[in-house]
């Protein structure tokens, strides 16, 4: 621990280094005894549960892994089901309605594999460094690059938050609920989740809500999908989408943006830190991330299958928003199926609004050095909670402005996410290869290869988008 304490004369900070040293065995333990906070105590309680589950498990081998996983699952499932948000589910719905069952089914699986590669790195980074992503970027790259990175995050998060409230409004609109009431329900959900003052409780409440993303499964079953066709598509990537190349490219971009976005990196790393995960939990964190990616991929494919009847019946869904999809589907999947679809869009908006507003608040707290934990009471971390609620309320208010041109936000938010992703990935890969931060947990060859391939792929798709924008007739647009 030499050099860890702040130098009182220079005001400089001690050097952090990757360590798994238990605080009680640290030379600074005596000093730390008097400095413990509410956040530390709550985190210690969470760690006690995990450690005890491992310790107790020695007498009950069969259930030990399940108990430990139950305690450690959370950030990975939340980040992927949070990213199955309102605009993402609408992108999948538009994909199903425009192209039916075919190329896009395995393509969506591929995008979740890409997401898995990216998010696994955030688990390691958070568990080893015990610091959020924004904090590490500012720390290792300085304010100049830090503010650029934060700019991308803030713009993307706020635009996405707006679309979540559009989804909430549209989902409940199907049932005849007035926009102001629907948006109010969304706000109450966000406030309700954070008033617990405990990360653990917040996480379990949000997980409980997130599992309703599965509403798209019964909606898909009611659409009576061609299951052999689904299997064939998964194996052969066919039939290929037919139509204008520019339109296909836009949907490809939107579907990638529905799976990999900058907020996911910032959120999962901060959540891993807030949950108190340690390097010994990395395997469980990987399972958590894999579980989240698998569930989200299944639910995404279910949304495509649910709207495939619109493709088969030649219905033009190009201008559809949330509730319009549900209304158009009613003749083909029944009122119950349409209602489930509308509820699914509502749920997707609620969970994402909770996760994305929390992601913004974490990043704000990390950059400003103010308290940034859901384990902190409001009086200790009011800037954190103010950011969370302020961004949510602003997005909710915008959605209620009559005739605001919000449809373009929905159309472009996933595209913006993809375009902002390469720099975020570059910082992530550089950090996770930084031995001063990661120690023995730095990326291996295959992890780097996968990360670089994903980055190059996203840059390539972005450049293709740029070319079609500048030369719209090039691809027959």
């Amino acid at each position, binding site marked *: *621990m030499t050099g*860890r304490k702040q130098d009182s004369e220079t005001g400089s*900070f*001690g*050097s*952090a*280094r990757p*360590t*798994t*040293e*238990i*605080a*009680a*065995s*640290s030379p*600074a333990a005596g*000093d*730390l*005894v*008097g400095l*413990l*906070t509410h*956040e*530390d*105590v709550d*985190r*210690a*309680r969470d*760690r*006690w549960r995990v*450690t*005890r589950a491992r*310790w107790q498990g020695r007498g009950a081998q069969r259930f030990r892994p399940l108990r430990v996983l139950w305690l450690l699952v959370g950030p990975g499932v939340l980040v992927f089901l949070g990213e199955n948000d309102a605009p993402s589910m609408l992108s999948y719905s538009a994909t199903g309605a425009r192209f039916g069952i075919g190329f896009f089914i395995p393509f969506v699986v591929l995008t979740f594999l890409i997401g898995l590669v990216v998010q696994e790195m955030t688990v390691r980074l958070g568990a080893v*460094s*015990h*610091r959020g992503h924004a904090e*590490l970027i500012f*720390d*290792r*790259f300085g304010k100049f690059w830090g503010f650029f990175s934060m700019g991308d995050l803030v713009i993307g998060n706020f635009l996405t938050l707006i679309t979540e409230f559009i989804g909430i409004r549209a989902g409940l609109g199907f049932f005849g609920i007035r926009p102001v009431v629907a948006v109010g329900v969304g706000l109450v959900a966000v406030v309700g989740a954070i008033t617990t003052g405990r990360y653990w409780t917040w996480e379990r409440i949000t997980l409980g809500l997130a599992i309703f993303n599965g509403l798209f499964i019964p909606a898909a079953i009611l659409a009576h999908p061609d299951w052999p066709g689904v299997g064939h598509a998964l194996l052969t990537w066919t039939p290929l989408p037919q139509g204008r190349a520019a339109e296909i490219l836009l949907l490809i971009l939107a579907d990638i943006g529905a799976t990999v976005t900058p907020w996911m990196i910032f959120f999962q790393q901060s959540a891993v830190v807030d949950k*108190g995960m*340690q390097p010994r939990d990395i395997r469980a964190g990987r399972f958590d991330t894999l579980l989240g990616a698998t569930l989200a991929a299944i639910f995404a494919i279910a949304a495509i299958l649910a709207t495939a009847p619109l493709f088969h019946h030649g219905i033009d869904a190009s201008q559809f928003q949330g509730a319009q999809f549900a209304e158009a589907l009613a003749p083909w999947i029944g009122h119950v199926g349409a209602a489930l679809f509308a509820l699914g869009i509502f749920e997707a908006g609620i969970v994402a609004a909770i996760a994305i507003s929390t992601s913004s608040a974490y990043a704000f707290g990390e950059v400003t*050095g103010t308290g940034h934990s859901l384990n902190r009471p409001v009086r200790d971390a009011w800037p954190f909670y103010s950011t969370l609620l302020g961004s949510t309320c602003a997005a909710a208010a915008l959605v209620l402005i009559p005739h605001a041109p919000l449809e*373009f936000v929905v*159309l*472009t938010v996933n*595209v*913006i996410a993809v*375009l*902002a992703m*390469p*720099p975020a990935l*570059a910082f992530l890969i*550089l950090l996770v290869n930084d031995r001063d*931060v990661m120690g023995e947990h730095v990326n291996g060859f295959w992890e780097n290869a996968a990360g670089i391939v994903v980055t190059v792929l996203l*840059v390539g798709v*972005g450049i293709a*988008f*740029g070319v079609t*924008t500048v030369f719209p007739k090039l691809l027959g647009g």
Partner: protein
Amino acid sequence: MKPREDFAELGAASPKPDLKDPRVVLSLLETDQVVAAKQQTRFGRRTLSPGIKILLWGLRVYVVVMFVLVVVSVIRATHSAP
């Protein structure tokens, strides 16, 4: 220094740990997980090689150009909308 496992299991051994006892709290957390310890340390700036600087600047220019193109496509879509 006691081995890490011993400390971890010290806290875990208790069916209901007394978390008002700071020593129990410290036995359950890694040093960098304690808020006060984390606030006092930084990893510090890393040296950016010319290659990394070129990469970061290149990606920054890429993002700015792409954002401009998104605005262009939105304006174009606005004007072509019925």
